């Protein structure tokens, strides 16, 4: 088949906004403060991140998600913003930010920003003005009330630290509304100036070059009497307004919703394909951990069976761990007790309604288990989001307050401060890990890059393989019957086209069929069989693959052909926590069939 020589995406030329890049992208969530300190002041900064772009390009991620970098008193990890239109001086300047965006784009890496729309810091000038009197120009930019009894149906999110969503303000002699910490008053979107200003904010950052936003705490923008104040129609209307701006003036830029809820509710944030491009699938994450502890697939398949179809052009964002606690809001009380007992044996590991631990310690450092979970993450429906440091299996520090346990400095080398900063130890924003198991002398980028057998290299290889199998991004998803409850097997399938890459002339890449620029290429169907053993013991998997009879399962990592599929049940043996991905290759597409 002749392949058109055209650029195929961010790695090969200028960004093509028509390509739904986010449906195939691997996101990398980075805490600027903890990534790399370029100016030796003990805090990571934009220049530091910019210096490490080569590493991120080498790793093979597609999009950086920057945690809040705005001026903030840092009472909630930067989610308490005191100026939406600037960069925290600890991190650098707007100029540094533009430099970072340009360099990232040059490397084919997109960048999205965390946009905290729901609330500000109580140190924000808007709030300072609002609380100063009941008549000032911004008096209604926040929600004030004479008592704390309004909207009793709205739940308190941080039940361990906040008793109410209302807090008394001595200056104004009224209560103000907040869904999170009391130092984070909620903005009042019923005031047109607020809603307009936040749209201006979106435009401001997109004009600087951001490729989109992760919308923080998006379900809470509006309150209405008699409701729980979550997922209200007015919120959706407002998101559609922002999306319309993006479609009109910033094609190819994305919105990613942080809406912690059941999939059927969260899917509303896709709208009819006219709201968010991506939504986080929160309930999947704890169930991945539950499944490997219970050694059975049902926690995963149950939640996936409750996950609705989403509009074309949308995608779930899935993750193993992030900057927050491993949230257990979307599990039953019984399941929460179970997860606490299995993964938070020390009470200090608990944070709010979750577990403040990183991936590796959650898994007791079991690399096989980490590989299995990543294999699931990279093949289940959704765009994977990797939390910085988890590519090394970094540890955590449960003795640090709130969620700082998982926000310690990135471990670059065995040198002083883990290579994160040349500042004095006492200057560091948080102490790096120094324990013998997860400390920087044992776990760091430098050592793992030198060791081809390291987890870092393994993950990098998996990202390469994922890129070669576009059906893992947007393909149909079908769980296969397997009598063995410890085995989770599914097929991702769809039409793809093979195209030559202009840059090299000879390299062929496989991309989804139907995307702009490739309509002329002849599509072929691709089916990838993913089989995972959730048990610590070796397990057989007996699968009915009759639909693919005649195809050869080509093991993805080694390109090893397995016996041709027939009508009989197909038996695969998996080692402890083993996984196998197979490209189910039709006879006519088997390498060597045409004698070449």
């Amino acid at each position, binding site marked *: 088949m002749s392949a058109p020589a055209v650029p195929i995406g961010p790695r090969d030329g200028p960004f093509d906004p028509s390509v739904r890049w986010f449906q195939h992208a691997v996101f990398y969530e980075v805490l600027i403060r903890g990534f790399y300190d370029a100016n030796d002041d003990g805090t990571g900064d934009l220049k530091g991140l910019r210096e490490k772009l080569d590493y991120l390009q080498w790793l093979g991620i597609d999009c950086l998600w920057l945690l809040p970098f705005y001026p903030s008193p840092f009472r909630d990890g930067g989610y308490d913003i005191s100026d939406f239109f600037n960069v925290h001086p600890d991190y650098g300047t707007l100029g540094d930010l533009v430099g970072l965006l340009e360099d990232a784009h040059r490397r084919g890496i997109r960048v999205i920003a965390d946009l905290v729309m729901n609330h500000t810091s109580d140190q924000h000038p808007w709030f300072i003005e609002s609380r100063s009197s009941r008549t000032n120009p911004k008096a209604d930019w926040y929600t004030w009330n004479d008592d704390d009894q309004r909207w009793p149906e709205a739940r308190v999110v941080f039940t361990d630290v906040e008793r109410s969503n209302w807090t008394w303000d001595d200056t104004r002699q009224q209560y103000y509304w907040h869904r999170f910490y009391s130092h984070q008053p909620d903005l009042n979107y019923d005031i047109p100036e607020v809603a307009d200003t936040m749209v201006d904010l979106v435009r401001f950052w997109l004009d600087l070059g951001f490729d989109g936003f992760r919308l923080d705490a998006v379900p809470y923008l509006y309150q209405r009497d008699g409701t729980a104040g979550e997922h209200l129609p007015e919120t959706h209307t407002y998101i559609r307004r922002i999306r319309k701006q993006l479609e009109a003036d910033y094609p190819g830029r994305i919105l990613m919703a942080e809406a912690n809820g059941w999939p059927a509710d969260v899917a509303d944030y896709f709208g009819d394909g006219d709201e968010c491009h991506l939504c986080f699938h929160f309930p999947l994450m704890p169930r991945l951990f539950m499944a490997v502890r219970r050694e059975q697939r049902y926690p995963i398949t149950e939640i996936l069976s409750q996950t609705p179809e989403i509009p074309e052009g949308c995608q779930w964002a899935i993750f193993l761990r992030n900057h927050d606690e491993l949230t257990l809001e979307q599990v039953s009380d019984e399941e929460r007790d179970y997860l606490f007992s299995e993964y938070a044996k020390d009470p200090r590991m608990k944070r709010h309604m979750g577990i403040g631990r990183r991936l590796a310690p959650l898994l007791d450092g079991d690399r096989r288990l980490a590989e299995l979970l990543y294999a699931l993450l990279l093949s289940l429906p959704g765009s994977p989001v990797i939390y910085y440091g988890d590519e090394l299996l970094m540890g955590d520090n449960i003795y640090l307050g709130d969620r700082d346990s998982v926000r310690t400095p990135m471990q670059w080398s065995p040198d002083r401060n883990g290579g994160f900063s040349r500042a004095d130890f006492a200057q560091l924003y948080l102490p790096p890990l120094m324990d013998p198991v997860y400390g920087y002398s044992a776990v760091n980028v430098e050592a793992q890059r030198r060791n081809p057998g390291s987890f870092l290299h393994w993950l990098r290889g998996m990202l390469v393989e994922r890129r070669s199998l576009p059906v893992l991004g947007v393909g149909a998803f079908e769980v296969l019957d397997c*009598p063995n409850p410890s085995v989770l097997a599914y097929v991702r399938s769809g039409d793809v086209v093979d195209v030559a890459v202009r840059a090299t002339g000879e390299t062929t890449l496989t991309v989804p069929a139907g995307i702009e620029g490739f309509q002329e290429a002849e599509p072929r169907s691709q089916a990838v069989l993913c089989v995972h053993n959730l048990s610590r013991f070796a397990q057989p998997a007996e699968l*009915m693959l009759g639909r693919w009879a005649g195809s050869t399962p080509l093991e993805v990592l080694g390109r090893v052909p397995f016996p041709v599929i027939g009508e*009989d049940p197909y038996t695969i043996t998996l080692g402890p926590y083993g996984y196998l991905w197979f490209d189910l290759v039709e006879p006519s597409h088997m390498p060597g069939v045409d004698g070449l």
Partner: protein
Amino acid sequence: MLELTDDRRLSLTQLVSAWLAQHREDRSAAEPPVEVREVEVLRAGRPGLLDVIAEAEGRAVHAVLGVRRLGEETQSLGTTDDPVLGLFEDDEGLGMVVDALHDAELAPLVLAAVTGDDTPVTGVTPVADTDEGVVLAFAERCTLTVFPRLFDGLHPGVELLVALDEAGFNHLAAPVALWRRGGRDLGVVQELLAGSAGGWALALTSLRDLYASGGLPEEAGGDFGPEGRALGTMTARMHLALDRSFGRRSEDVTERVDSVERIVVAADPALLDAPGVGEAFEALRAANLHGPVLHTHGDFHLGRTARTDQGWVVADCMPGGVPPGATDVVFRSPLADVADMLWSLHHVASVAASERDPTGRSGLAALAQGWEARNRRAFLSGYLATPGIGGLVPTDRETVGKLAAVFELERAAARIMQLGAG
């Protein structure tokens, strides 16, 4: 229609004898006399299908025979090495006869004949092949159960299945088509339980984890407790549906206890010396209870259940209320089914321990006991917490425990008798 000439009748008699021989465990035993009673042509031509009912071993047997061209290749399903049974001459000439349910090409044709749906199906998997039924799964479609031994009248298992379905009990593979002729059930087609794993397999998964990690079962990762509780809930819902479908009767518990005692004495009097047994019998007699009895499942154990993405289901209704060793439906206390499941929890823990540690040196027995105790509690707690179940079983937990123990003893005695007979 097939004209049943003497020659054809003789051929079919020999073919059914050969078919019976393939299905008998003891192939060296003398072949029983066979008398062909009915032949129905399910599919004419080649390959053809003949549905044969014959009399053998004192009851009706049911063989589905395929007639292929001579010398045709066959692809065997399951453990039968060679499905070929012999030759048969019909209007198409001489053909090679095979067991159609063990032939990968013919099994879908049997399904098509039963359902009247000619849509091609691929991927046939043999699920079970016992005297109770030959079960075939057709990928992504359904399962077909064909009864090799027929009841006079309707099959109690099918009656149970249909009754549960009509009562709105949705924890089962719903019947899609019934294969009935002359007032007898020949088979049944059910929806496929997507993503299911057997209850026994799931329990083994939990036990493997516990035996590897040690400690308390609730602290082991593969804790079965929540599953046990959900299984208990599903069991209670099954009993409520059976109550709605078949109604209930009342039974003198003392008489029942006396009857169980006689069975236990006949099996092994030493069972009565086990701790707590005597007290349970006496307490139940002293209580002078009357309780409801139902059309129960009949043989309710982990192997009859399955776990799916939607929760637990009754995967196999075929006992149909006929307990092991009985020949007809017996109305029993629903706690008899409960006792079956409790016994099954004991059994799976013991089997898993002996498989892992045949010598008993690793001390798995204590872990097994802990697992069993936890999951008995979980199962009972799910069962008794189900709204409405209080109308079917005693409200006081202690009496429930004693009654369940008595029924479990009956189950153990039946097992001893069965092993003795074997």
